[in-house]
């Protein structure tokens, strides 16, 4: 009940955020965005023809009316049809979001899971050889551009110059085996690039928790290291870890990974967004922007509820 009421309050508090984001994006990409009139009218149009096209596109309506219509579209999730493919925007999203999710999830889970694990090891051997080895490798991983990582993994694993184990492009999730074949190389590239950042971040968090007074107390009472790591260190590190993890979720769902999707020829939401920006496909852009704002509000709500689960000092008020 407490959680329910809290969620309700948070959702209401999130409304101004959604309004603000949509207003700004509406101004930038719709109101001051590309004018389609002259693409649609014929050669040497008369003033009446121009006016007619403008009224079809709704350009003659006042600003407020047009913005309110956008808000209506958000509420009903009906953004009309794409201007370039004439496909319904909602069906584009329904088709591409799952693809992006399936593409990004393994890398996301592995990147964070391995990051926490390596950070624990590095923090445990803090200052020693193993710590330096892990942190040095993390710095190397961070320094390699995502693009280079993608191309390197493609050459090493998917080309006849390398091991040639996986298809270099395309997407197929019809069978689990096909999915694994197509997702492995993108996942490796993602993990390779994200792991350095994650490890460094999580190590900093864990080292901070290791130096807390209550860790010393636990040691003074003979609690063994494994238990201290779980009860005193990991449990207390959960707030920053949860924050980082949950706030990356909207980015995966909506922006997907443009580089991954274009380099592996995968029809995900990142690719769709990119194409929409290039061609000025307003219905698609409006949908993506609105969804991103909403997802961030949801993510914030989720993190707040998770805080309550991991830290009793947080009250849901």
């Amino acid at each position, binding site marked *: 009940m407490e959680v329910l009421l809290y969620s309700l309050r948070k959702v209401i508090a999130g409304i101004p955020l959604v309004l603000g984001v949509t207003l700004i994006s509406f101004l930038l990409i719709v109101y001051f965005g590309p004018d389609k009139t002259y693409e649609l009218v014929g050669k040497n149009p008369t003033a009446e023809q121009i006016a007619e096209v403008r009224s079809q596109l709704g350009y003659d309506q006042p600003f407020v009316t047009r913005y309110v219509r956008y808000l209506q579209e958000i509420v009903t999730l009906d953004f009309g049809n794409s201007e370039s493919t004439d496909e319904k925007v909602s069906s584009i999203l329904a088709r591409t979001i799952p693809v992006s999710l399936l593409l990004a999830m393994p890398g996301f889970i592995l990147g964070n899971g391995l990051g926490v694990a390596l950070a624990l090891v590095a923090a445990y051997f803090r200052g020693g050889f193993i710590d330096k080895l892990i942190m040095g490798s993390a710095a190397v991983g961070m320094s390699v551009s995502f693009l280079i990582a993608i191309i390197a993994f493609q050459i090493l694993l998917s080309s006849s110059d390398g091991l040639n184990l996986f298809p270099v492009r395309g997407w197929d999730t019809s069978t689990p085996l096909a999915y694994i074949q197509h997702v492995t190389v993108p996942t490796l590239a993602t993990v390779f690039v994200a792991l350095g950042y994650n490890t460094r971040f999580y190590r900093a968090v864990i080292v901070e928790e290791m130096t807390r*007074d209550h860790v*010393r107390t636990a040691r003074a009472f003979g609690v063994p290291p494994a238990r201290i790591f779980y009860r005193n260190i990991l449990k207390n590190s959960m707030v920053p870890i949860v924050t980082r993890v949950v706030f990356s979720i909207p980015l995966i769902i909506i922006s997907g990974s443009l580089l991954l999707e274009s380099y592996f020829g995968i029809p995900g939401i990142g690719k769709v967004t990119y194409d929409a920006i290039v061609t000025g496909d307003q219905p698609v852009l409006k949908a993506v922007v609105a969804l991103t704002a909403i997802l961030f509000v949801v993510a914030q709500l989720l993190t707040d509820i998770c805080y309550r689960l991991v830290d009793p000092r947080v009250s849901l008020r």
Partner: protein
Amino acid sequence: MTQPLLEVANLTVEFATDAGVIRAVDDVSFTVTAGETLALVGESGCGKTVTGLALMGLVPSPPGRVVSGSVRLQGKELTRLDEQALRDIRGSRMAMIFQEPMTALNPVFRIGSQMTDVIRRHQGLTRRQARQAAVEMLAKVGIPVPEKRIDEYPHQLSGGMRQRVMIAMALSCGPQLLIADEPTTALDVTTQAQVLELMTELQREFGMAMILITHDLGVVAQTCSQAIVMYSGRMVEQAPVQELFARARHPYTAGLLASIPRIRERQLQQLPVIEGMVPDPLHLPEGCRFAERCAKAKDYCLLAQPELKPIGKTASQVACYAPN
């Protein structure tokens, strides 16, 4: 003569820093008999906390290291024990409580969970028995409605209450020695008095020895029988508390006693202070470490360190060429 509970001999602890090696505890030796209260007195950074940690085998390593010396608990050498064996002793035969009650408990677990964890580990009780024992201990340290408080989180308790919980936790396995590192420093004055009183009471009841680490000489006078004064990592004086207060032999001890605020016969313009600064631990002088600040220092004080020597036939020891 009976064997003392704790024998510390020539304990030396060093810390490796970027600037060089710092000797935080230098050649400290003392004994604690069962049931006795020993005070370890000195200003911040004199090595008293590190001494306490070294007794528990808790010197953070790296950078710290017990270089030499021996710590014997009932004749058993602790410095050569492995971690596993030390863990069995920590919390059960010797316990330590710390200065900061606000941060010394794990914020994400209930009091009961933290207490029963320790009790079950050392005494092999069932969950229910351990909980019962924890409730009884909480009642003993004066926590009202312990069966309810046990299910609260540390942040729901006040500082004094938290320190009581720490004491309850420390006593829950009936240790023979309790090391209390400035247990009342972070508390307000009325709570301080209550907690001190509680500690002495429980100490008598449980018949355990206590090492009280403090910079507060008022606390020493109230609670302790023996006192060791430390300065810059070394012991400068050891004496029964009454003698120490009656006649401080070392000039540093005398200076400390003079600088206690109290009601005096005539009003002072300013509280007496010990002039000067503690020597830089990276560049310790060859002679007496207090010489630079000592009003009575002679040339020979700067040449070699005075050894800790008994004074006549008394139980006191002092490290000074010209004790009072």
